[in-house]
């Protein structure tokens, strides 16, 4: 049997590195969709001040939240139509074909809430919070998990035992419930306490993952060789072990950015991020809008929720795609 030659000029990239990864990603549409979604959210987060500019007079004290740490790092801009609440108050002004009775189309494409808050502003600025929350919590978890997992897997012994027991406890708990319990202990509803609680519950996953991988890698001959040539342990761990265990961690981290944001949104919905309606967190926006859905103001709930959904979907799609590429045997 002969295999057809690839068309001339078509050269598959080297079997390693980012070029190759990108080459494979291009072949799978779902992964591409996920990637595209993530790019959109990143752009939203980066260009929020351009996409949803806050008038200078609204950046001042009048809308600066009081007493909630975490909010002062972000502007609270999404009451943008306070000056002109009539413009699109409680309407969803995107015209369907044949329905042109509304003039406020351009000012608030996602409608406004009962407070006169512009949902579009909330969605755009919320992207910032979500990206920061997802990436921040996941990276914290990865770093803690990497350090502890490397040590536990490499040295074993009592450290390994203790870490195993601790991670056992954490992994035998539903994350959402544990995070709730931890935030309650902070006695302080803020974005930071949510991020902190999520970081506390999320590191054990990585520790276990890294530890398991190290146990496998440790048995390889190149590690033996490195040991025999007298390299210090830390050097072997960083230079020889870590690069070889990164793939499953990257996959897990990608999936987890989505889950972190999903959980954070749930916590925020319950009311843990802030009591202030000014914080543009998506879960919070859903919570603020939920009372009005019964009276037909569906956009107050639908658009922020859609934002969460798209964000998490994007990372899940990309994570799944990456898993198929990097870690074919690990596919569940």
């Amino acid at each position, binding site marked *: 049997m002969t295999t057809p030659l690839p068309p001339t000029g078509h050269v598959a990239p080297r079997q390693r590195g980012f070029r190759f990864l990108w080459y494979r990603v291009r072949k799978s549409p779902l992964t591409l969709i996920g990637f595209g979604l993530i790019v959109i959210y990143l752009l939203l987060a980066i260009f929020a001040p351009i996409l949803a500019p806050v008038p200078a007079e609204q950046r001042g004290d009048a809308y600066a939240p009081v007493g909630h740490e975490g909010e002062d790092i972000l502007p609270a801009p999404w009451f943008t139509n306070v000056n002109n609440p009539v413009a699109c108050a409680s309407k969803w002004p995107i015209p369907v074909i044949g*329905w042109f009775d509304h003039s406020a189309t351009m000012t608030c494409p996602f409608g406004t809430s009962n407070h006169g808050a512009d949902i579009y502003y909330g969605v755009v600025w919320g992207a910032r919070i979500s990206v920061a929350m997802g990436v921040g919590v996941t990276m914290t978890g990865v770093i803690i998990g990497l350090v502890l997992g490397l040590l536990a897997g490499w040295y074993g012994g009592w450290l390994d035992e203790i870490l195993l027991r601790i991670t056992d406890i954490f992994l035998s708990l539903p994350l959402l419930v544990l995070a*709730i319990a931890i935030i309650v202990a902070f006695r302080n509803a803020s974005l930071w306490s949510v991020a902190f609680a999520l970081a506390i519950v999320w590191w054990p996953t990585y520790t276990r993952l890294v530890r398991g991988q190290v146990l496998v890698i440790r048995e390889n001959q190149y590690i033996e060789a490195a040991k025999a040539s007298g390299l210090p342990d830390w050097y072997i761990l960083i230079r020889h072990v870590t690069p070889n265990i990164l793939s499953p961690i990257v996959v897990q981290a990608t999936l987890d950015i989505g889950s972190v944001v999903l959980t954070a949104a749930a916590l925020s919905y319950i009311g843990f991020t802030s009591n202030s309606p000014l914080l543009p967190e998506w879960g919070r926006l859903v919570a603020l809008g*939920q009372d009005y859905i019964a009276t037909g103001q569906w956009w107050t709930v639908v658009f922020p929720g859609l934002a969460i959904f798209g964000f998490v979907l994007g990372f899940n799609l990309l994570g799944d795609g990456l898993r198929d590429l990097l870690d074919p045997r690990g596919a569940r």
Partner: protein
Amino acid sequence: MKFWTYLLRRLILAIPVILGITLITFSISWEANQGDMSRAYISAKMTAAQVQAVKEAHGFDKPFFVQYLTYLRGLVNGDLGISHTQNDRLITQVFADFFPATLELTLVAVVIALVGGVFLGTLSATQKDKPVDHATRFLALAGVSVPIFWLGLLMKFAFATSFPQDIVERASAVGKTVFLFLALLVPVGIGFFAAEAMQPRALSWNRIFGRLSVLGVVGGLIFFFGWSFVFAVFVSSVIVAFALAALVKVRGWSRIPKRIVWAILGGTLLVSAIVAFSGVGSIVVHDIFELVPRLPLGGRMSNEILNPPEAHPSVTHGRTGLLLVDTALAGDWVAFNDVAQHLVLPAITLGYFSLAIIARIMRASMLEILSLDFVRTARAKGIPEREVIRRHARRNALIPIATVVGLTFGGLLGGAVLTETIFQWPGLGRWSTQAIGSGDAQSIMAFTLFVVIVYLIANLIVDLLYSLLDPRVRLS
């Protein structure tokens, strides 16, 4: 014998986990109360001496670890403290009240997730890379990505609240537009047909039938949509037909400039759009809105069921607390129907996440099994494909699902917090959010502890079941 040693081993191994968790929950509770655990027992009206008495009676003036040990002793004796949010009742009593509701909701959700997930996973695997597979995979992916509280709200909006009038109107406007375009296809089609018919060619049966079918279509349109509509369409059709036919006569089919065709079409579309439309679309959309079932907004049963209280004793004084079971046992089908209707939305909302996970794993597991030799042998023996899948493949693919069900149980209980809050379900989850709202740390910690223990037990049962399902798995 092996079974019992295994069970014993697992139970012993669970002890440090439970101890660790009690330590965590107690320190969190301690932290939340700023080191003063007496807060829940003290009211503002008490004098300093009374406060001191309460503190001494419960040992709240002792150091952390002493209090922790007291707490542990209380736990062993079934004393979890009191719940501030429930009028200072004992937490164990509150549990007894709320637990059946949560259990019922969770069980129905598990059943929905299992049945749906296994079905969709099998379907997806057997139809790999076909449209059904893609649709199912998207459904599963959406299930793990959708915020459960948002889904619940959307469910309520779509199936429980009555549609707001302006939404119906707006949707009717959309329906109008859609129907408009559909209707515009009719004159265009008739026009082209007529132009074709005017070609100088011999009359054949085909063409006669063609004309008759046009008559049939026109008749049908008159029957369904009324005269004025069809007349408008007919007029515009005739215009198109004559214009096209004239062009064809002059220049031949292939030589008509495209933009003239488009101009004629556009003109007719506009004319018929303005003249023809008399609200057919909006009527249809209205009817669709009427068809969507209206389910209860929340709660476990309607007020009519409880009023008068003695009308349905199975609801108020059931033996199990699981209303579905109680009403069915009592044969009270009116109440059963009501309770079942209240369960639909929350159970689907809660079960969807697990359904998605189960569908994904079922698909993977099924694909793996389908590639194995014994499946090929079964097919080679001539067993019909349906049977191969039902009896050979699916049974084996189900084994990993057992583990997943155990693991999703934690997620379900976590999700119950959100679902119960949204649907006003009188269960543990809603109680915990109320406790969160009023900073009642004691209750939250009790809830956490409860969830953990349920989770551990569920996973133990699943592991034991696993060894029954798959004899290859050794208990060790």
